């Protein structure tokens, strides 16, 4: 279908949208739109929207997969893609209709505003995003072209590093302590607590902490730890680990705010388009598209739908004056508008759900909990009086970085043999063993010596040891 609009039309609509964006008080970065076709779109998706990205076969795999799904019409492509950079870059598919482009542009401003203002994104220097990815790509290509290194070796490190890249710190706004600070803290910790009855009690003996231990406190940035503590890595290998780590960290905030972010953008695109006074044909199409995007996926979760419902609920509760609100007393010092903008700034998915997903919403969204039984998902809990809280807890466990097991390095001299000892902070969910084995193998490869992971399997404390080339599982008494 030939698109019956021109770039000028888009600019015109954009102009009107921007006016509304400013009137509503949104505060986005400057915006850049690029028109692309569907193959370019797939490419951008595969390389997380970056105009340049280092090469790795896994992206080829994603491309094939996405293209196959798209060609067989098993999946649609997103209408838009925005990257968190300053100016924010968004891609619009040229095959889309005018109504869809208008909707998309409004949606993009929502994301853009979120990127700029949510606290989780504070640690990212948005103005350098594109350049950073470009620099990474150049460095990786340089290593691949270096005759003394080459593709095979680079790939080996990248494969291993990708496996561990998300094992990094989740809350980046907490500053990482330097080694000196950690030492000080350790010494501080070792002091006995002040005893109010010290005149009668015998003084506790002070045990000096082992300051030679590495790391002093459990370390979550596994790739960085390996980079800093494996003396056998070459400079280019260290650099690759740094690159993979930095790229993973860039995506942590986006993983952490998926529901909020999509909900926020949907909330505002609806608001903006309603205020745009669209001509009737565009308006009808907008309603259809909006409903498609925002409809619940039975059996799954639609982050757009859930996020938007919660935002709307917040707005309703803070603008209502009816006594009904008193059941859930909300401090009425803020206007609904102020509240929305505050929440957008200070929450992440887990806290957002914990604080604003009310019992009524759990029921309204018809949420349920399921367990996998064999190959099937079987409902285990539905939103009733007894279980809504449990469902909410499970949901919170499954959003953001909650889906990544917490694994930290505890000792780098395990068995006095320079082995690496890690602990899985078990929260009731077991590791998938096949994946754990292969990932440990990668870890073993990067560390160069034995690695051991303490975890709980089927309610038994177990130690997964990967030494030489095989995994052994020992129960821990």
């Amino acid at each position: 279908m030939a698109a019956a609009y021109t770039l000028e039309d888009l600019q015109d609509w954009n102009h009107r949208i921007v006016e509304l964006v400013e009137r509503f008080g949104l505060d986005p970065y400057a915006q850049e739109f690029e028109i692309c076709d569907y193959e370019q779109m797939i490419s951008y998706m595969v390389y997380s929207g970056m105009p340049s990205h280092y090469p790795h076969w896994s992206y080829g795999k994603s491309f094939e997969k996405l293209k196959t799904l798209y060609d067989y019409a098993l999946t649609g492509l997103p209408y838009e893609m925005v990257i968190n950079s300053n100016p924010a870059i968004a891609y619009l598919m040229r095959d889309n209709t005018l109504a869809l482009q208008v909707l998309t542009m409004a949606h993009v401003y929502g994301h853009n505003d979120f990127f700029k203002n949510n606290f989780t994104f504070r640690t990212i220097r948005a103005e350098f995003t594109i350049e950073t990815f470009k620099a990474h790509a150049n460095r990786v290509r340089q290593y691949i072209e270096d005759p003394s290194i080459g593709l095979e070796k680079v790939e080996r490190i990248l494969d291993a590093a990708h496996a561990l890249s998300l094992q990094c710190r989740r809350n980046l706004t907490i500053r990482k302590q330097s080694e000196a600070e950690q030492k000080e803290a350790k010494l501080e910790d070792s002091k006995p607590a002040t005893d109010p009855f010290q005149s009668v009690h015998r003084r506790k003996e002070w045990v000096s902490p082992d300051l030679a231990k590495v790391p002093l406190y459990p370390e979550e940035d596994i790739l960085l730890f390996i980079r800093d503590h494996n003396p056998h890595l070459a400079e280019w290998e260290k650099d690759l680990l740094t690159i993979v780590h930095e790229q993973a960290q860039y995506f942590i905030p986006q993983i952490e705010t998926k529901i909020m972010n999509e909900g926020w953008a949907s909330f505002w695109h609806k608001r903006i388009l309603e205020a745009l006074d669209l001509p009737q044909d565009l308006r009808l199409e907008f309603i259809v598209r909006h409903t498609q995007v925002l409809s619940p996926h039975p059996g799954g979760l639609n982050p757009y739908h859930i996020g938007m419902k919660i935002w709307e609920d917040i707005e309703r509760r803070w603008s209502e004056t009816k006594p009904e609100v008193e059941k859930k007393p909300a401090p009425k010092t803020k206007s609904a508008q102020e509240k929305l903008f505050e929440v957008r700034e200070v929450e992440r998915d887990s806290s957002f759900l914990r604080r604003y997903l009310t019992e009524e919403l759990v029921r309204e969204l018809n949420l349920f909990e399921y367990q996998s039984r064999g190959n099937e998902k079987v409902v285990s809990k539905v939103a009733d009086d007894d279980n809504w809280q449990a469902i909410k807890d499970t949901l919170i466990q499954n959003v953001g970085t909650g889906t990544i097991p917490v694994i930290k390095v505890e000792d780098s001299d395990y068995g006095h043999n320079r082995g690496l000892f890690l602990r899985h902070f078990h929260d009731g969910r077991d590791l998938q063993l096949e994946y754990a084995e292969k990932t440990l193998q990668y870890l073993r490869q990067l560390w160069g010596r034995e690695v051991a992971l303490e975890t709980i399997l089927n309610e038994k404390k177990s130690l997964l040891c990967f030494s030489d080339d095989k995994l052994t599982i020992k129960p821990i008494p």
Partner: protein
Amino acid sequence: METIFREYHPSSGQRSDRSAGDRLRHRQKVREAIRHNIADIIAEESIIGKSKDRVVKVPIRGVKEYRFVYGENVPGVGQGGDGEVQPGQTVGKGKDGAQGQQAGDRAGVDYYETEVSLDELVEVMFEDLELPDLDRKHLRQMEVERQFRQKGFRKKGIRVRLDKKRTARSRVKRKKATQRAAVAAPRGQRFPFHKDDLRYHHTVTEMRRESNAVVVCIMDTSGSMDTMKKYLARSFFFLLYRFLCTRYQNVEIVFIAHHTEAREVTEDEFFHKGESGGTFISSGYNKALEIIYERYHPGLWNVYAFHCSDGDNFESDNPAALKAAKELAQISNLFGYGEIKPLGAGYYGSSMIQYFSQIQEPNFQTVQIQRKEDIWPSFKTFLTKDRVRDDAA
């Protein structure tokens, strides 16, 4: 606030096709994975068949991206549709992985199977063979046709090959050139052909060589050959045929079934019809020799013969079989004897493998197949003996 619009650029080179390198690399990885599993894949019954367009589903290991992920005992949360959701209700299949690419926080559903066409699979299979010797050997080729073909033009030649059109054209060229050079040259004057204008076709003699191969499949169809044994035999013949198709332009296939006497049969009969009775292996060999001399003269054809049997031959036939086998080995590129003894099939007193060890011909090979997994290794050993005779033209 400012907004920039960038217009659409149809595939601005690098950008649109930048995933090409990564896709290629991924494809290589998939092939590698297939190669690692080749023995398993060959053993699958489904690929035995000759349709070229057949698409085979091949399980892939080794292209997954591993991370630490949670296992099966992890509850999830879903959203109900309009209706009530009841505890105990089944709401879908497995985990819905395959989330957004960049999120990458779940393992996602890695596809375990990939589809490859049979041709591609065969190609990978024979890459796996890694038989450098085979590549270096020249295939025996027969000169089948001599023909003349026009190729280019010359200024000298014999009269019959004169190209009138080109000759006329070159005269016109010369005429124009002359007129331009001498402006004052009188127009309208006669401008005759010159010797330099003449153009002749040039002809070259071309020889078309062809390489032909015939696969002679000989199988024991006596009562003791059951379905399982036939299946193993069939897999072997299939591989042989496929392999030769990649090497020769023209491959024919002959099926000979024998018990106490041999006859040529169709493929269908060969694999599906059981017969009963005892076994005279020599009968099969003699029939093969007869057909080869009659239709596929060894001077013109590369002969590949293979015999599958369970080794249960009549004692009295052994000397005759040995003699025929020797002769067959002499005239063929490769002659193999495969003894199929599925595990648990019991012990047969006679084994022809031992008996055939008297044959000294270097291109004779015996293999023993006990189960499906043996097919590929034994096929490899069989091929290492391939011989291309020097007496070939």
